């Protein structure tokens, strides 16, 4: 993606975001008492100002994108296999969702170990044995510190509980 395209997409996104906020999100997702004497005291006032400014910045970005030359070059360094990269990113998103969902069910230690290994695999580590050792040692050490030194109730899950 070129720098010009980035400016243009951001400008369009900011303008659409502004419209969405003013026309839908602020009226529907912010409750405001009906008897407010002064508009500046309304809970909707500040988000509306922010939304309006977002629209202005969006317009500014659109104007700037028009003056950016077409041949402004690539904004990001391309990677070798973008398709494989996207698959890995999808895998990471899945890993995060699974980690979040499993944390209260299996416990932080038992989720962190496979999460560590899965991330090392996704990052194509060249040190699988070290990764395996760290995957077990790091969550255990952190559990020991947080649970026994800091006195924080680390989630233990429903199945295997640690001392």
């Amino acid at each position, binding site marked *: 993606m070129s*720098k010009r395209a*980035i*400016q243009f997409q951001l400008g369009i996104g*900011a303008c659409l975001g502004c419209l969405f*906020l003013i026309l839908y*999100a602020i009226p529907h*997702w*912010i*409750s*405001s*008492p009906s008897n*407010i004497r*002064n508009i*500046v*005291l309304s*809970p909707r006032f*500040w*988000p509306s100002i*922010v*939304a309006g*400014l*977002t629209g202005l910045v969006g317009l*500014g*970005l659109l104007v*700037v994108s028009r003056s950016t030359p077409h041949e402004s070059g690539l904004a*990001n*360094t391309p*990677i*070798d296999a973008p398709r494989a*990269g996207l698959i*890995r*990113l999808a895998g*990471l998103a899945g890993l995060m969702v699974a980690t*979040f969902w499993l*944390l*209260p069910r299996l416990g*932080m230690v038992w989720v*962190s170990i496979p*999460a*560590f*290994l899965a*991330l*090392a695999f996704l*990052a*194509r*580590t*060249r040190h699988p044995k*070290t990764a395996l050792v*760290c995957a077990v040692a*790091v969550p255990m050490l*952190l*559990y020991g510190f*947080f649970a026994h*030194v*800091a*006195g*924080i*109730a*680390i*989630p233990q899950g429903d199945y295997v509980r640690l001392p």
Partner: protein
Amino acid sequence: MSLIDNVMAGFALVGNVDAFLALAIGIVIGVIGGAIPGISATMAVALALPFTFPMQPVNGILLLLGVYKGGIFGGSIPAILIKTPGTPASSATILDGHPMAERGEAGRALGMALWASCTADVISNLSLILLAGWLASFALSFGPPEFFALILFSLTIIAGVSGESLLRGALSALLGLLLATIGLDLVYGTNRFTFGNPNLMGGLNFIAVLIGLFAIPEIINTVWNPTGHVGKVRTLGSKWVTFADYRRCFRSILRGSFIGVFLGSIPGIGAAPAAFLSYSEARRTSPNKANFGKGEIEGVAASEAGNNGVAGATLIPLLALGVPGDVITAIIIGAFMVHGLQPGPMMFVMNVDIIYGLFIGLILSSGLLFIVGSLAIRGFKPVADIPKRILMPIVLVLCIYGVFAVNNNIFDVGVMFVMGWVGFLMSRYHIPAAPFLIAFILGPLLEDNFRQSMLMSGGTPDILLRGPITWFFWGLTLITIIAITRGTLDKAREKD
């Protein structure tokens, strides 16, 4: 009692091994706590508090002050090495510290962070001792309109951390301001973007947003391009900070220290805005302006001086007025109370020996911080040598534990993951993260003070210009905006 008598009484209290050890142990705990992302100086102080109960009051308070000061410096270690600020105050250190680490100058960056921290610490402590009464009375005259004007001026620092595009920086800041509105409305108690979820009623957890925005995108980037770092050096390197570096950055360190002292003496501002403001000022005035954000050592010096300058100054309102300057000093005020002490003007009469004992301890703490910090830099060397594709899973697990530990809330882990993706997208679209963070910190303060001012005046905006303090900050804001506009126009003209 005369000044000499007071100093001698203070010496009698802290001139022993116990007090010295308490301070040293506090600094060690603070540096370690600050260096572990998610623990933060605040959490380290809170964790250490119960251990001070059986100690002598002055020793216990010195231990906590040691944790505080050590924590603020310690936060810079992971900020530089793994781009994960150990404390929010170290966020600005990432901007130049991490690029230096990426090109194999982590040791130099950490060394400068330590030197700047210790210098700022000395200045901050001296300011506390010399200016406690005067600065505290000045800060006491701040009401909501003055705070509004001050915070509005602080928001102009966004221009300094926006990188190549002011508009993208502004967009980032607006996103931060918008996300800061999530939660219950402070005046009416109504819901704003909470979707009925009780976890959102208190707003988004700052640490979750901070770690999500800075650490998780690094992990996502590693997964997106696992070999992207190959060939890039990320070790402490053989290059260490020199006296010439220190001399070159001295003006920025001095300026940052005083910015820290000034902002620290005003309750509620905190170390992170001080670090960003100091960084922004250093960038504005530096002859190496173009290198800022790409690994300029002066940037590291300025941000570390800014955040450490706050550490002693936050004690000014605490000791002189009994008003905590930030969250950490609020915890420390609890320690005073546990030991039967009431900080405030009367303490200067009733417990003047403790006051002077603390002053002496604080002066000692700067030297101890230098020793402990130098050892910590070498101690954390292995972190720099860990292969990136092993380090990133470690960072992920550390972030999960750290973010959970702040509020004992798994929801915060989810917030961190979501913010990680937001941060990744922002980096792909070249939207800088620092303006987002500054706006996220300052946004609620700005809105609350604005609405409080309006409540006070019955909706009349005249109150926002009610006195010399507000005029001063409005004037500064205006001058800064003019300077930014001129700078942007000049840059555009140069391109043409």
